[in-house]
């Protein structure tokens, strides 16, 4: 995926918050990432270390909460975790599903000193 663009956005959000709260140092960034986005955590940390050099966020650890995809059946409204794509509803066998989770991409919080 486009990890550099994503990391730049994460960094901008973190720095904006850190400056607003007159923080000395950001030690941790808590991220919520849907598995469907394809974002690779190691890659984001690598770019983050590079981008954050010489800033309040230098050395911060990124923590990823990965959200598995969930689907809702359009027939019976059953809500379930989608372990594999292309499956039918486990409750009624319906074949029209709508994905309702797994696309998340946000900064949950930052931990500062």
């Amino acid at each position, binding site marked *: 995926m*486009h990890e550099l*663009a994503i990391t730049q*956005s994460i960094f901008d959000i973190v720095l904006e918050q850190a400056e607003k709260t007159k923080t000395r140092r950001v030690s941790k960034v808590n991220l919520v990432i849907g598995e469907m986005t394809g974002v690779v955590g190691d890659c984001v940390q690598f770019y983050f270390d590079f981008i954050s050099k010489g800033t309040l966020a230098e050395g911060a650890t990124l923590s990823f909460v990965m959200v598995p995809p969930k689907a809702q059946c*359009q027939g019976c409204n059953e809500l379930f975790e989608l372990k594999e794509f*292309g499956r039918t509803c486990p409750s009624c066998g319906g074949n*029209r599903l709508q*994905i309702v989770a797994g696309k998340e*991409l946000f900064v949950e*919080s930052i931990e*500062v000193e």
Partner: protein
Amino acid sequence: MEIKVLKNILSANEEIAQRNRKLLDSGGVFTVNLMSSPGAGKTSLVLETIKALKGKTRIGVIEGDLSSSVDAETISKENVPVIQINTGGGCHLDANMISKALSNLPLEGIELLLIENVGNLVCPAGFALGEHKKVLISSIPEGDDKPLKYPLMFHEVDAVLINKIDLLPYLKFDTQAFSQAVRGINGKVGIFQISCATGQGIQEWVSWLLNQMVQR
């Protein structure tokens, strides 16, 4: 100390996309973001759509590619306004690129704007441009397993066009399995079988498009 942030990572792009959308809405420009892998037939579809809608609606085109203006040159032969965006290696169009392109297009003379995204089934799915509808072109030679491999893209779109349907007798592609896989990810999507080479299904596609414009 922990500080709650709860901010969408792509919010900067989303904000520009919303501005684009307002500009398009105020000018009455219905905009479609066309996405596909490289070679699925985006440019051919743009050409067929222009031909099918000649005299029915005024079309403008934004072409997105890593480099070259080959596509814009092809489209400009149809006498419609066209802007080429070169991303310079970037794997997707973003809202800021569209914002700049819009300022260079004669929007007052356009009712339907077709944006041809960079050929890629991964990244373009994550970046809103300000469009009204997203359309995916999948083609027979790519195989029927693509919805299972690129679920986010198939989830994001309003219509899926199966292009090169005229090649069905020569290649192994199960249209039923494909459609089932798509509906298992996106139960609301419209699926059309088309061929830009023979013209099959193009009328159904443009009827859907005109309907979406009216219902907006």
